[in-house]
């Protein structure tokens, strides 16, 4: 269940526009409910290629190849996926990649499932220890400027950046029988 902001464009739509503006071409992802609207927009776009992964670290390596081939990309994943990426994040520093990832958060803000909490609690720390700058958006009204800033510093300054999309923003997953 995801709350929608009462604005002209939904925040996933705003993210999609930013990715278009920065000429992002490759969008690797491991599905997450919080990213579902953005993934649909990407898969329906002729300018971007959505690439389903079996595990998130594949996306880090894919973006290294894309950059070598002259294309920008963004990795869409859930907080638990950050843990899967750790060794592969070496490539971000080694190649000085213009790396951008958008991470939907679990394990915080009203979480029902305790299994999400250990990784969700360490997501920001792991990213920072891996040399990645972390920004966070918690309210629909700030998503656009935070993602814009993240994309600008990643692509213009080759400053690896993760934008955490809070569970407060996407809405805690509701488990019902």
């Amino acid at each position, binding site marked *: 269940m995801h709350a929608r902001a009462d604005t002209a464009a939904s925040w996933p739509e705003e993210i999609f526009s930013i990715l278009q503006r920065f000429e992002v*071409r*490759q969008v690797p992802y491991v599905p997450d409910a919080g990213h579902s609207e953005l993934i649909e927009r990407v898969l329906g776009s002729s300018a971007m*290629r959505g*690439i*389903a*992964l*079996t*595990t998130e*670290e*594949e*996306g*880090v*390596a*894919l*973006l*290294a*190849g*894309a*950059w*070598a*081939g*002259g*294309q920008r*990309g963004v990795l869409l994943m859930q907080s638990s996926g950050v843990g899967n990426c750790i*060794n*592969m994040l*070496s*490539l971000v520093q*080694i*190649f*000085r990649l*213009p790396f951008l990832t958008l991470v939907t958060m679990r394990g915080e803000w009203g979480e029902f499932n305790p299994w999400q909490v250990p990784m969700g609690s360490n997501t920001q720390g792991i990213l920072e220890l891996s040399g990645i700058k972390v920004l966070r958006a918690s309210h629909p009204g700030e998503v656009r400027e935070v993602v814009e800033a993240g994309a600008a510093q990643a692509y*213009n*300054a*080759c400053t690896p950046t993760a934008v955490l999309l809070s569970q407060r923003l996407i809405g805690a997953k509701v488990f019902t029988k």
Partner: protein
Amino acid sequence: MSKANLLDRRAVVFELLRDRKGAFAIGGLGASTYDIAAAGDHDRNFYLWGGMGGAVMIGLGLALAQPTLPVVVITGDGEMLMGMGSLATVGLQQPKNLSIIVLDNEAYGETGGQTSHTGGTADLVGVAKACGIGDSRAISTMAEVEAFASSLQDVTAGPRFASAKIDGANLERVLSSRDGTYIVNRIRGSIGHTPI
């Protein structure tokens, strides 16, 4: 411990890259990178010294970005086993210009020659085929290597996958550059991209 009738890894890679034209070559960490270096340094050599399991995905990202140029991933069985899911991802994307070849010595040569899963029950050609890479073959002769080398120039008929059983002998290391930024920017420069 060498078995009879196994291919020489340096001869295989030399043949793959002998008439490479504009092809990009990605080498998995360890001996495959040394093999590519031994075949001759090139602007479009993508040497890996880490990121184990990522070689095929780097090849996929490059292949999707440059669909008119051949991309060949040359890696070992251990590196391929670690990134086996990437074969499913390639199967889904069907990049026509991507070729993957595993130099399979059934061992982790870089770390003391411990037996890998391909020396036991795992069949990487079967895995690739089952992941949707229709052109997946086992290679056991230099004639088959030559055929694979010329097929990788065809950027309309991939993806393709091959596994060549090679001699397990540890050869002298031929060290490539290990400066990742230099390696990537050199590749980017070769296709007309200037530094930021």
